């Protein structure tokens, strides 16, 4: 019986020939990441464990990105706790706005070449599934599990069943990874992949750039998945060759691997999607949503704040103005993206259109700061969750969409198809 890519990675990390779904295995971890929100609890737990040093200061990563730059004293205190820990432990990879390399963890770690195909990555954040786009096994855990992994360099995992999601057909113009994953979530449902590995494959996926692949694996967790994964290929290699000199092993699923379920998607007629409040699986084609008036547009996050996302938004916003009564907030996901967007003139396009541009931060995506919503307000956001109150007041509403739809909506003052704005 063949193995899936997820099973192969876990078998290797466990030092076993093979594993099967349901097996509980002890695995070596290649990278453990925490943020300013989750690390303080892990740091306290490490002390209770009597762990004076982390297992490897090159493999434990701290990112201050949620409440960054600190919007209040409480957040500043938590960030300081993480900063002190990072320096005291001599963590090689410590990131914070204003400290040089910085950004939202799930955009930053791949960009810095820290997440490699075939590796096991744990993060104290649910969107850790993002790194599966590079062919890694990556999953989110709670602060205690993360503390144990930081102390020992290993963790235990139950091998998940895999679901195979196969896509064919070329994507139409203005349709990308975000539309594909929103459509997928609509099919699979928010509980459709609980505890499972979502394996995305097929000609449509193979034709996608890394940025879209990250978006897809990022939101695998919205179906309840333990991990999302895409087999590495030439595009993956191209992405990595600029970013790392470390070696890695590209693993692939066997032809006779077994899956708990299989989905097939035809993509040539896929329309831009909009997920209605209050669940990421409530997607409909954008044409059905064009009467929804909006107050705010957020373009950014670990889902859609990469350079490619900003390029698409700028393409639509060039020489346009944000509609009266709508505020646009653009948040490049990393400092590197910020600098590149600056050099390419994208930030000027956003500023000229009337938008506000922020330093990299998770900010409004989790209702933290930097543009949260008031009661009765409606936003189009390129982020990943539109639960009740996720981005502010419980009586605010969030529609999830791609950067293209978000930019077009900012110009139209209501949810709009990009074709309505770009002629």
């Amino acid at each position: 019986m063949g193995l899936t890519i997820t099973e192969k990675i876990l078998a290797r990390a466990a030092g076993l020939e093979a594993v099967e779904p349901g097996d509980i295995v002890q695995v070596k971890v290649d990278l453990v990441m925490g943020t300013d929100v989750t690390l303080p609890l892990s740091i306290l737990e490490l002390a209770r464990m009597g762990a004076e040093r982390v297992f490897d200061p090159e493999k434990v990563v701290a990112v201050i990105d949620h409440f960054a730059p600190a919007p209040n004293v409480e957040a500043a205190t938590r960030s300081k706790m993480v900063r002190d820990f990072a320096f005291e432990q001599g963590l090689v990879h410590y990131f914070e706005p204003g400290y040089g390399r910085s950004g939202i963890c799930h955009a930053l770690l791949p960009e810095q070449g820290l997440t490699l195909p075939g590796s096991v990555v744990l993060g104290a954040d649910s969107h850790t599934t993002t790194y599966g786009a590079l062919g890694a096994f990556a999953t989110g855990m709670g602060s205690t599990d993360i503390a144990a992994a930081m102390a020992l360099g290993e963790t235990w995992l139950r091998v998940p069943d895999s679901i195979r999601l196969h896509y064919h057909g070329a994507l139409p113009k203005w349709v990308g990874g975000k539309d594909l994953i929103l459509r997928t979530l609509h099919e699979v449902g928010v509980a459709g992949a609980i505890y499972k590995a979502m394996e995305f494959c097929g000609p449509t996926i193979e034709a996608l750039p890394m940025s879209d692949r990250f978006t897809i694996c990022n939101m695998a967790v919205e179906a309840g998945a333990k991990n999302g994964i895409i087999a590495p290929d030439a595009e993956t290699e191209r992405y990595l060759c600029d970013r790392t000199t470390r070696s890695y092993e590209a693993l692939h699923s066997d032809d006779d691997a077994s899956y708990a379920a299989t989905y097939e998607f035809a993509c040539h007629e896929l329309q831009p999607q909009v997920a209605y409040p209050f669940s990421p699986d409530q997607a409909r084609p954008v044409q059905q949503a064009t009467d929804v008036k909006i107050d705010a547009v957020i373009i950014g996050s670990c889902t859609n704040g990469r350079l490619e996302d900003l390029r698409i938004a700028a393409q639509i916003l060039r020489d346009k103005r944000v509609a009266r009564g709508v505020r646009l907030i653009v948040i490049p996901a990393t400092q590197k993206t910020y600098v590149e967007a600056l050099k390419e003139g994208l930030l000027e396009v956003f500023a000229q259109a009337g938008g506000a541009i922020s330093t990299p931060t998770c900010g409004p995506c989790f209702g933290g700061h930097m543009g949260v919503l008031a009661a009765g307000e409606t936003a189009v956001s390129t982020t990943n969750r539109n639960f009740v109150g996720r981005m502010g007041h419980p009586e605010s509403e969030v529609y999830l969409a791609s950067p293209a739809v978000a930019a077009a909506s900012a110009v139209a003052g209501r949810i709009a198809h990009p074709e309505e704005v770009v002629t």
Partner: protein
Amino acid sequence: MRGQRGRAWKVGDNVDTDQIIAGRYLSLTDPQELASHCFEESYPELTTGFARGDLLVAGENLGCGSSREHAVVALKALGVPCIIASSFARIFFRNCLNLGLLPLECPGAVAGIEPGDEVHVDPATGKIENVSKGLVFEFKPLPCFLQEILTAGDMTAYVRNRLSQARSQKVRR
């Protein structure tokens, strides 16, 4: 780790963590206080009748809903050494093992155990015996490292033991 022998208590399918411990008690930190409200509304006979060492038997998807660790803390303080269920919700399963409560997935045993039956569980050999009915069910034995976590008490104690062993080995060298 040692075998467990006790009387079986049964709960149904999809028993969520709110039914195990209601949200209004989450501000409590004392495990015994939490235990006194465990299953308070969903299975009140369990709250008062459960004796330390009795076994909990549940249906599908035990511990679904909120990820609160309080549910496992309350069950441990109630005296539950081991849960046999048809299946567990993911986070609850992880919380059980990390906090030192043995979760066993064995749908056959759940079907073959009635409330009040005398049950013996042997994690090392992977056997659940319904002593009252003379039935034996098998489950996949837990890997050694998980048994070590349970023997240590919880994940925190397990890591502490591992680190101090590593330190003393270094000293010996």
